[in-house]
């Protein structure tokens, strides 16, 4: 276990470096720079040029590219992502404000998607002819084919009277009691969480169904039934445990989709999370923020893929990780 972990962690180093290099390259290859918007509005061109030079020197934009990259890399190792070019606040501060909203949204969506996907998938595999399961599968399949932002807009249109339009908190949120605040946030979460979780739900429930159908056709299931073990425990103890493995790996890989999807969902529902922050930073060419978010998103995904792989080993004794190699 330990040598495997060390090897995996070492493998993450080149991947991480590659990601930072790619992020850096994209943001610097982009034509134009964050000062252009300012310069156009400035009255005295000479004055603006001097100010721009000072701005560039202050943010290190006048140094050669490789020096800029190495300096940036050295700093992020100490979690210093620099200051935003827009409002000069530290990037870490902006991230710290946005991250909880996205984490809340993503974790609730992920949890909900998996909690629902497993029973739906199992039911679909056990009773393939049931009308309920056909209805559910069809609905998910149809939803999966629709653009998320369209579903979000339609939901707002149809249910906008019952559910709040914007953000995660009502205006009087701070004055509420603790249970009131929790309820308020939950109420605001309903529509965004639905939009963010249904694609994952559709994919994972199909996966569970396929794995369960495979498992139920295996000899050990027939043997268990022959021994007179109750059907309920054949399904949940014998078949389900074995079919959950591929689903566990999916957990790590569904995170990038959630982070990507949050850009659209946060924009429709006006939630000030990482997605919206990234979108705004990209529109305003706020390089330090864009680079920090890309790096962070990639890092979170890398770690979650690793955790999923480790869980895989824990769940299945046959694949004791690192045993073979």
């Amino acid at each position, binding site marked *: 276990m330990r040598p495997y972990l060390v090897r995996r962690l070492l*493998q993450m180093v*080149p*991947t991480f470096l*590659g*990601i930072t290099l*790619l*992020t850096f390259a*994209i*943001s610097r*290859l*982009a*034509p*134009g720079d964050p000062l252009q918007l300012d310069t156009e509005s400035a009255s005295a061109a000479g004055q603006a040029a001097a100010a721009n030079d000072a701005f560039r020197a202050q943010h290190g934009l006048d140094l050669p590219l490789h020096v800029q990259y190495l300096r940036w890399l050295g700093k992020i190792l100490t979690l210093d992502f620099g200051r935003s070019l827009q409002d000069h606040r530290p990037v870490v501060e902006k991230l710290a404000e946005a991250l909880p909203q996205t984490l809340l949204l993503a974790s609730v969506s992920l949890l909900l998607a998996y909690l629902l996907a497993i029973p739906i998938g199992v039911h679909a595999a056990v009773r393939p002819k049931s009308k309920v399961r056909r209805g559910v599968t069809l609905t998910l*399949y*149809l939803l*999966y*084919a*629709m*653009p*998320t*932002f*369209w579903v979000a*807009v*339609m939901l707002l*249109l149809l249910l906008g009277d019952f559910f709040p339009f914007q953000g995660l908190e009502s205006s009087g949120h701070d004055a509420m009691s603790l249970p009131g605040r929790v309820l308020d946030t939950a109420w605001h979460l309903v529509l965004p969480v639905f939009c963010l979780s249904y694609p994952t739900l559709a994919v994972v429930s199909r996966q569970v169904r396929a794995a369960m159908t495979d498992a139920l056709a295996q000899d050990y299931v027939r043997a268990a039934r022959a021994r007179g073990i109750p059907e309920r425990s054949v399904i949940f103890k014998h078949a389900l445990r074995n079919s959950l493995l591929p689903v566990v790996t999916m957990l790590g*890989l569904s995170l*990038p*989709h959630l*982070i*990507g*999807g949050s*850009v*659209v969902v946060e*924009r429709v529902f006006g939630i000030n999370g990482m997605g919206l922050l*990234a*979108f705004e930073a*990209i*529109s305003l*060419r706020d390089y330090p923020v*864009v680079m920090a*978010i*890309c790096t962070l*998103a*990639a890092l979170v*995904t*890398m770690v979650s*893929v690793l955790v999923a792989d480790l869980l895989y080993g824990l769940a299945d004794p046959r694949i004791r990780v690192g045993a073979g190699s």
Partner: protein
Amino acid sequence: MRRRIPLRGRLALTAVILLVLTAVGADLLAAHLPLAVRVDGTTYWLPIFRQPVALRGATQQQLATTAEWIWRTPVPWGPNQTFAANAVIADTPPPWGPDLQHWLGTDELGRDVLARLIHGARVSLTVGFLSVAICVFIGLLLGGLAGYYGRGVDAVISRITEIMITFPTLFFVLAVLGLLRISSLTPLVLVIGFTRWTDIARLVRAEVLKLKGLDFITASRALGLSDARILVRHLLPNALSPVLVAATFAVASAILIESALSFLGLGAPPPTASWGELLTQAHRYLTHPGAWWLAIFPGLCIAVTVLALNELGEALRGLLDPRA
């Protein structure tokens, strides 16, 4: 034994073929000029392609009153033909709801929604198919190399694949398009193509790994064939069927990505009608005058297309995968 394609698969295939035909023949289905027209003793065939001087600035609606005879397109409106050119007198400003003139209504400039949808099919399908063509090419190349040579090559390619997987796709595409400040179809296709190849590369790698130990490859090697020839002529063709299935699903997801990018303001440039762009415009008009037709129809087009492609992928999987 030949397997039968299930009815759903055949329906999906029909739908996809119809969509491709619509995209290819968009100018024959909906245009501001007719299929054929006779004006002042001269007959013009398919004037939309030749743009004859005599018909410059004319519309089917004007020609219908002046021409000796006219063969109209099924939808007699061009995708960018605005109400000013329509010669339709209405009491209220557009958007107009569906009626006999405009079957699916018009947008806020009086442009016919059906005509824009027909031309939008071209944009959406082009983005979908071209970007996936790039994905398949990169996937075959990198997956093939990684699987065939193994060791160092495999390690490097696996790291590159991992980097691309770790980046949330929409994020990455958004960053590239947004920071490069380009809104045109070519970079859109390129960026989607260069980010979505990872699934295909992994499939090809696994397939090549499985195949390269088989006797026919040993035989090819014994015959003295070069590595390139073995890879291109013998290994990759045998690895194609799972790629075909994955590519079908990839087209569907590329169309969805295009619509999301349009919504974020990075899709096809304004006058172009793409489904995502139509939906985005509709978003602004939804709550105010309640122009439901602007949002429902493009959304349905995307949903039906994605559904048909997913269904086709399922059918192909059933047909090509011996385990299914």
